[in-house]
């Protein structure tokens, strides 16, 4: 949600292929964000990069892998490594081969958990464009859905204690390295969580401003979302007898599609209900 760019890994033993792909993809933007392109010229170099950089190791949106490099199946082994040894099921992996005879499409797609297969001849700039764009959409939707489910699970586990709920929420509301550029606030019944006085004041001001704007309804109960011209978002759940009033305010560098907004609304709604049912205790652990 708070991405600055989309990390993409290109692995190919032909330097020209890497250079041309990099050039072609230089100006690609998906949801208004650029790509960050990592390149490796062999499976070994890719492994080194994966072990060296946590973004490549864990947060790749897309990987385009050549098959024949130091060995005839190096690219497929790399795919296996990403999927099974790293346990990364989210990255959209595409096999791009120059020798389809060595790794036939059907066999590869049957045996490896890949998202697509094409030959280097097919890889025109337009093809790359549509492929990157659609795969990042897929990555974002699937990733957000999984992250929301995980968050919802954590909230459910923490239900009963507000202190535990805060702990479960700390990845979202708590300070993080991205916080300076993409600030966010969680406001429950008018109280700003995780914030000092200045930050809380800013959050409440923003809430007042965005709250005054016309928004898009999320459900018949009156929950809605609002977006202003400066990139601030508000997802608002109305308070009631069984739920607290919760506002999730954030600044995003890109406009999340409708589907993502409803996913976020899901967790805000759940938080509203659980908060009301939980007690304010002072216990840790």
């Amino acid at each position, binding site marked *: 949600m708070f991405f600055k760019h989309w990390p993409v890994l290109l692995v190919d033993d032909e330097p020209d292929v890497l250079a041309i792909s990099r050039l072609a993809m230089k100006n690609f933007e998906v949801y208004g964000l650029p790509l960050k392109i990592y390149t490796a010229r062999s499976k070994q170099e890719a492994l080194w990069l994966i072990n060296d950089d946590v973004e490549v190791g864990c947060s790749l949106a897309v990987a385009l892998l050549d098959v024949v490099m130091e060995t005839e199946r190096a690219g497929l082994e790399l795919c296996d490594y990403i999927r099974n040894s790293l346990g990364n099921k989210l990255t959209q992996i595409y096999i791009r081969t120059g020798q389809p005879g060595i790794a036939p499409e059907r066999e590869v797609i049957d045996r490896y958990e890949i998202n697509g297969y094409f030959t280097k001849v097919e890889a025109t700039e337009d093809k790359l464009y549509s492929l990157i764009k659609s795969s990042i959409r897929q990555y974002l939707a699937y990733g957000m859905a999984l992250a929301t489910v995980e968050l919802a699970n954590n909230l459910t586990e923490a239900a009963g204690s507000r202190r535990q709920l805060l702990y479960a929420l700390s990845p979202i509301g708590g300070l*993080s390295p991205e916080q300076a550029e*993409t600030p966010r606030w969680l406001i429950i019944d008018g109280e700003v969580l995780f914030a000092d006085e200045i930050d809380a004041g800013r959050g409440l001001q923003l809430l007042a401003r965005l709250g005054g704007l016309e928004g898009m309804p999320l459900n018949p109960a009156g929950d809605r979302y609002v977006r202003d011209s400066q990139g601030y978002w508000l997802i608002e759940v109305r308070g009631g007898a069984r739920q607290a009033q919760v506002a999730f305010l954030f600044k995003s560098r890109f406009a999340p599609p409708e589907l993502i907004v409803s996913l976020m609304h899901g967790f805000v709604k759940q938080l509203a209900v659980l908060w009301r049912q939980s007690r*304010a205790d002072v216990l840790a652990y």
Partner: protein
Amino acid sequence: MRILLISSSYNGLCQRAHVELEALGHDISITLALSPDDIRKGVTFFQPDLIICPFLKEKIPEDVWSKHLCLIIHPGIKGDRGPSSLDWAIMNGEAEWGVTVLQAVEEMDAGDIWATETFEMRRASKAGIYRREVTRAAVKAMLLAVRRIESGSYRPEPLDYSKPDVRGQLRAPMKQQERRIDWEHDTVAAIIKKINAADSAPGVLDVIDGKEYYLFGAHEESLLQGWQPGAIIAQRHGAICRAAIDGAVWITHLKRKHIVKVPFYKRFLSHDKHFDFKLPAAKVLGSVLTDTPESPIDPLFAGTEPTFKEIWYEEKNRVGYLHFDFHNGAMSTLQCRRLLESYRLAVARPTRVLVLIGGSDFWSNGIHLNVIEAAENPANESWRNINAINDFVHEVLTTDGKLTVSAVWGGCGAGGAMAILAADKVWAREGVIFNPHYKTMGLYGSEYWTYSLPKRVGPVKALELTETPLPIGTKKAKAIGFIDEVLSDHYDEYLEQVRQKAEALTKEPLFSRLLEEKRDLRQKDERVKPLSAYRAAELQKMKINFSGKFYGGEVNYHEARYNFVHKVRPKETAAYLAKHMRLDAAKLSELRQPLAY
């Protein structure tokens, strides 16, 4: 008895006192001496029969010591007083030193003596002596004092300097002026003594290339020499070698003198980095060492001549012994990679059993938080470090040609406490304290713990150990199957026991049978769930600790690491230590905060 421990920090000695007293059935609560009010609150809520201060730099308020019996554990012989006891003992070359259990009174360290223990001094750093000799003597003296109090009839001995066995005296805090190294006149022995007396705090202040640094980690060098005393003549694995008038001395760590402290949040959000904490010397000096040659050392160093070495190897009667003595047990990415290389070489030797000895103070404490903190991108460095340590643990787990043993003399915590479990057998010295949890650092943890820990202690205990971040002693560790054997608390006896037991394993037919069982078990486990799947699942969680993704990132680890590295004191005693807070605060919150939120 209800015993309240008051301590400046929950350090090794305090953990040991906690574990030992609890094992005797005493009811223990702990409060950190964060302020006089914190101490008072602890005493009021817990109503202890006895207060013990294992490691206390602050004064106890008068209204506490005048109403309750407070015992102070002082790292000095009878009559010794003042905050720099061990520093002076090392500087003065005392042959024997001790620990005294004193009753708290108005004047610092001047109260009646409840127990005392002495020990032979060893040539080692202050922290090393504190962790080994002082801790052992302190626990012995503390338990004796507690027994004496329980007996009800013992009268403590008033401090009387006219008695012949009261050899100590009041000593002022040691100043940097007294610690200063005179490179033109001090011999290697004198330099090492000075650095040892100030290690791990405050360090000896010295000037290198016009800037002031505190020096730590001194080692004698036997071959290298230089013309200009004080000049840096070589570097090795992050340490620097400086010439002295009669040889040379290695210095492993440096700390820049006084840089303004920046609060975590400011520092976290800015991109300015200040390294005002202890780091490998080469990392601190950077470009100063551009022309300094690297002095290589055999990855399986087996020499006996004095030099700076982190990893070395011995072999006798078909048993290999791999030592890896990393400063404070922290293992950086590069150290892990070197250890892996040495381990592979040791495995290739014609031995039947390989014993992982670890270091003299710690076996290992997992990833190197200081190096990570100083890295350009701490999230990336954490990722590299955890992968490097995992590679080593994986190599141990999959060693199938010989038996492996973790022989734990020093303490181990976090990743280090999980890494010992990779070996086939785990033996530990009686006084070892294990901290098999990551929670205090805000991490999920890796090192294949999700495989090795439940395998040894079962899933329920595994969860208990990792969820409640408390230390465990060897008695409990043995009882729950965390370790296999408890060995002597005396160093020479311990080494002999390790040798005997390791050599016994090499004897046929025991060896062949054990090796076969080991291979079968590993194959079976691999079929059920491959090691790579355990690692993948752990790293998926760790990645969220290191750097966030869809909903942003967690900050717990980065903040905890910052506070650890910068020695920021917590605002309150953690609830899992302060039993008195746990009970009473729950009641209070019910009374004062009904659900009218």
